[in-house]
Every structure is written in structure tokens, then in C-alpha cells.
């Protein structure tokens, strides 16, 4: 789950990481009150969960109350890279000397966290990584000790600081690690971390991704809805299905992330275009399977539906039951290609045969057939 800049900054504030003074508004009429305690100049920042917000016009500089209001009117209800702006953060714009990058990420290979720092902040870390990989210093954290001051001092030193500034920067790195741990974050970054003209460090922009699997420990986030779900996405969420919308015309349902990804790959190899990724997971019930079919049936672009199930803990007769239920209830009729093998295969094939749906045993044959049907539909 991605947090908004202002939410991440609230966490920074709790942990005493300096942020610019600011206020959040949801309507442009709130600007006067919002800036009453702020000193000009200002930055007016759209709160959207998208990278490259600045380049897309989501951040506007303002010198007066009038300019702030104009900026707020312009940003609120606007779309930044397709996302609707519902909140705007107004902050004091600080005179800065230098922009740094400080972040904590998961290090898969070392099975731990890593601190990433760079003396060239302000651009996305990915961009720094591809252009000047040597500019990033990566330090793997021993999860049992956490980030101790001797760790963070060494990291701050690599950025060239000494004296009072060295200690200040080191403390911020330690606090950021604590933000990560306390929030069950899988990524948290300050980018840029500004060195101000007074030599202090202030978090100008902030990003945090909370581990979805840890939301049971964070009811404050679990209750929030950050994105409006489509009809299909809501149905998938309700039935514990993994669903990703794609831009093709072949609806895909399968069991197991790897198997479904392999199915998408096969469709592409044979010249087809999948409309979605949909993983039933293991041991799906008839209801969940029917919901999965309903999701792909209701996608308007879908011309044909490919079901690829290799039953282990998933039972083929349940899958067949779900398919028949969904096909009967669906108002739109779309051709179905079904590959069904594994546990209770014969029972499943019988159910489908009785409903007039034929079954294949090879996933490649099934993928080819689905692609051929879309070709037929085009001509």
C-alpha cells in the first residue's frame, strides 16, 4: 500500500525527522487559513500516488496568497498522470544548498533491509541507479541489531559530512529506519533530503510503501482506501483473487501465479494479447471460481476466455462447477477455451461436457485455440 506524501511526512514528524512547515487542504477556499502560519514563498503540491509528479505539473511555486489560491484551484480535481487530485499540500519553500537521497529498501538476497544513500537526490533513485550507479551507497542492515549510530555515522561519512552535520545526518538515517520498522514498510525514502542554507537537513519529499501482509498490525492504514477500485478489482479483492488488468482481448483465469504468467507468455508467443492476469490461488471454492469468471466476462474488451487450471489442491470439479455457474448467469455470451487437468479431472470434464463446453489437456493447445478465436472475431 502506497502512502501519500503528507501521510509519510506525518510519520516523519512523529519520529522527529524535520519536514517543511505546511498544511493540507481539500478545497481551494481553505488556502487563506492554511497559509496563515506559513512564511512565503510557498510550494503547492498535488497529493497523488505517482512518480514524476513534479515533471507532470503537480508541484507549483507561489509567492503570494493569491498565487497559492490559483495553484490550488488548478490542482484540485485535476488529473496528474491519470490520477485525480483530491488533496493539496501547501508548504514553505526553503532556501537549500544541496539535495540528497536517503532510503530504506528490502534486500532480497541478504534477507534483510538495506540503507541506500546518494549525494545526488531529487531525481528518482532508479534514474540515479541507471545513470550513475556508483553515486549510490548501499549498506545491508543486520536486522537483529538494527541501524546503530556507528552504522549510520559510517553511512553519513560516505556522503562527505563532518562535525555537527555528520551527527545530524546520521541521526536522520537511524530515525528513518525506525519509521520503516514501526510502520512495517517495504520501502521508505526521503527524496530529496535537503541540506538547507543553515546547514540543517529537512525532508522535502517523502514516499512510503506499507507491506500489505502487515496491515493487520496497522488498522489506521487498513481502513483507508487510497484508490478507487473498478468493479472487477473490487470483486477480485472480495474473493481473494489476484487480478491485474492488461490491454488485450483474451480473458485469462488460472491457478498459481507462475502458471498464469506462463499462460500470458504463451498467448503473446502465439500472437495473442491477454486482457488480464487472474490467479485463483490454491484451493479456490466454486464461488471464487464463479466470481473469477464473472470478472473476465464483464471486461468489455474481452472476446474470448481462456481457463488454464492444473488442479493440485484446486479440484477440477469445483472449477467446472464455477465455470458452468458463471456461464449460465452471464448476460453476455463469450467463447470459452478450457484446459483442465489434475485432481478430480474426470468429474470436472464430465460437468463441462454436460454443459456443452469442451476441454483440452494441453495448455499450449488451449492458448493457440484462444488466439485463433480472437483472429476469427476480427475478420
Amino acid at each position, binding site marked *: 500500500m502506497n502512502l501519500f506524501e503528507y501521510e509519510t511526512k506525518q510519520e516523519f514528524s512523529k519520529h522527529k525527522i524535520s519536514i517543511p512547515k505546511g498544511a493540507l487542504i481539500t478545497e481551494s477556499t481553505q488556502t487563506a487559513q492554511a497559509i496563515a502560519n506559513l512564511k512565503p514563498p510557498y510550494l503547492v503540491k498535488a497529493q497523488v500516488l505517482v512518480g514524476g509528479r513534479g515533471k507532470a505539473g503537480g508541484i507549483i511555486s507561489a509567492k503570494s496568497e493569491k498565487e497559492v489560491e490559483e495553484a490550488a484551484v488548478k490542482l484540485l480535481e485535476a488529473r496528474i498522470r491519470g490520477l485525480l487530485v483530491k488533496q493539496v499540500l501547501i508548504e514553505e519553500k526553503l532556501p537549500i544548498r544541496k539535495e540528497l537521497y536517503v532510503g530504506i529498501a528490502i534486500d532480497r538476497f541478504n534477507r534483510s533491509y538495506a540503507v541506500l544513500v546518494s549525494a545526488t537526490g531529487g531525481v528518482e533513485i532508479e534514474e540515479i541507479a541507471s545513470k550513475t550507479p556508483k553515486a549510490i551507497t548501499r549498506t545491508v542492515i543486520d536486522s537483529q541489531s538494527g541501524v546503530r549510530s556507528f552504522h549510520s555515522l559510517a553511512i553519513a561519512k560516505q556522503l562527505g559530512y563532518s562535525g555537527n552535520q555528520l551527527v545530524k545526518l546520521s541521526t536522520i538515517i537511524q530515525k528513518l529506519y525506525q519509521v520503516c520498522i514501526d510502520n512495517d514498510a517495504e520501502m521508505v525514502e526521503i527524496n530529496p533530503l535537503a541540506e538547507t542554507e543553515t546547514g540543517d537537513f529537512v525532508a522535502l519529499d517523502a514516499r512510503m510503501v506499507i507491506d500489505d*501482509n502487515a496491515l493487520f498490525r496497522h488498522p489506521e492504514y487498513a481502513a483507508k482506501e487510497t484508490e478507487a477500485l473498478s468493479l472487477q478489482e473490487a470483486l477480485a479483492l472480495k474473493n481473494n483473487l489476484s487480478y491485474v488488468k492488461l490491454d488485450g482481448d483474451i480473458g485469462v483465469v488460472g491457478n498459481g501465479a507462475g502458471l498464469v*504468467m506462463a499462460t500470458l507468455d504463451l498467448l503473446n508467443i502465439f500472437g495473442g494479447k491477454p486482457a488480464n492476469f487472474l490467479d485463483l490461488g490454491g484451493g479456490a471454492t466454486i464461488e471464487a471460481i464463479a466470481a473469477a469468471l464473472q470478472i473476465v466476462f464483464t471486461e468489455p474488451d474481452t472476446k474470448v476466455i481462456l481457463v488454464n487450471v492444473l488442479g493440485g489442491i484446486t479440484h477440477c470439479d469445483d472449477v467446472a462447477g464455477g465455470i458452468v455457474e458463471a456461464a449460465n448467469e452471464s448476460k453476455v455470451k463469450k467463447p470459452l477455451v478450457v484446459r483442465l487437468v489434475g485432481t478430480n479431472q474426470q468429474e470436472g470434464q464430465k460437468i463441462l461436457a454436460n454443459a456443452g463446453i469442451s476441454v483440452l489437456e494441453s495448455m499450449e493447445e488451449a492458448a493457440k485455440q484462444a488466439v485463433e478465436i480472437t483472429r476469427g472475431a476480427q475478420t
Partner: protein
Amino acid sequence: MGIIINADTKAIVQGISGKQGNYHTKLMLDYGTKIVAGVVPGKGGTVANGVPVYDTVKETVEAHSPNASIIFVPAPFAQDAVLEAITNKIKTIVLVTEHVPIKDAINVMAYANQSHVTIIGPNTPGIITPGECKLGIMPANIFKPGSIGVVSRSGTLTYEIASGLTAKGLGQSTCFGVGGDPIVGLNFIEALELFKENPKTKAIVLIGEIGGNMEELTAEYITQERYPKPIVAYVAGRFAPSGKRMGHAGAIIMGKQGTAQSKIEALINAGVKVAEKPSDVTALLVKALLP
């Protein structure tokens, strides 16, 4: 004799009374796996599937001296269950549980490393040494004893490829899933180390997918080690979009990182034969095994 588990493995099931734990204990017993005890706090003294149930792992150790545990407990309690097994010196732990928080996984991996414990998972279908022992949820009938080692990031895709191998008479020494999460225990490189020393294993199948850089690091290892046994790989997700989680928590491309293309290229450069389609794995293996 495969790797990690064999006919002598004596296992306990933590979470034996849940729906999954109960169902799969029966299937593991049917396969011939020696399940000596189950653990469910509060249900000590009862019997599940003919197996005695205890409140704690410690009691199972005193009564049955197990050397492995398979864990089915719900995600919020998975960390406790693993730490309990590690504390009681169980040396092989299979963590089937899905949706374990990353922070918990990182914590248990650090303890496991210190205590020289092998963890498979989380979010794994488990491990099978065909004909000897199965600690997992995979359908047993698609495997047969033989000389191919299989290690994978996916469940059903492993079944797909293993069925293909079995159909062509290529049995398996040991097959296991490393788990679909970003933080997992035993990884590809460690699996290759074990298969290298295992005399029964003649060739290895690696089944990778998008996300992270395990395949790239494995390719480096293969080159450095001049790995002595043939390896055939398949990598899923060549047409997956960036920034979207594809079913597994670990299967996500971030910008240009974690793409199937990068993994396939690295593996090919390391001399691994990479299959374009799952069904091509068997043919590539047959070719690789020719003298």
C-alpha cells in the same frame, strides 16, 4: 537419496488441526511421509489423522525426536511458530503459510541463519523427494523417483513442468519451491550447491519468474563455480507489465529491475539452456543429458 528430506525424515506438523493442515497431513501420510506428531496450542492430548497432538514443539521433541517441521499456521502466528521450531533445534522447516509480513520473515531468517536451520518458504508448495518423503501440498502423483533436481519460485508451474518430465520418463531426485515472497529461506544458489554434492542428481531444472535478482545472481554463481551439472531454466512473466504484482508478493518488476528478459539473458550467458515454453524444458533436458 535426494536433498534435504528423505525416507528417514521425521516430521511434525505445526497447525495440524486447521483446514489445510488437516487435509495435507492426510495426503502426506498417504504418501508415506513419517509424520510423528502435530502441534496446536490448547489441543495437546488429542489425535489428528491418527497422529498425536501436543501443545508445544518442545513436547514433540521429547516424545518423538523429529528433525523437520511443516508449518500451516495463519500468517500472524507464523513468526512464532518458526521461532518455536528453531528454538527446539528442528533443522528443516517448511513454511507453507502465505501472506507472512516481510518484517517477520526477515526476523526469522536471521535466527535461522544463526542456528544453521534450513527454512523453505514462506509461501512455498513445499518439498518432495519422490518415493521417499513429501513435506508439502503438491499433488504427489505427478512426481516419480529419478535424477532431475527441480527448484522453483512457483507452485503450479512446477507441477506443469514436473508432469512433463515424468511423462517422458525423467524422474526427479528432489523438487521444491523456494516460495513466492520477496524474502525466502533456501534460495536458488543454495539449492544448486546441494544438488551439486548430491550424487543422484544428474541435471537441474530452475523455474524462475519476474521480480528481484535471484536468477541474475544465480547466473553469476554458475559462471564462477563452472557448475558441473547441466541446468535447464524457464522464466515466467516475459510479458508482465512493470509495477504490478503478479499473484506472488515477490513477482513485481520495479522500473527496469526484475524483468524476465534480464534474467533470461543472464542465465543464457552463464551457459544455462532457457526454455521458451514450459513444454520445451523436457526436450532441452533430454538433449543436455545426452553423452
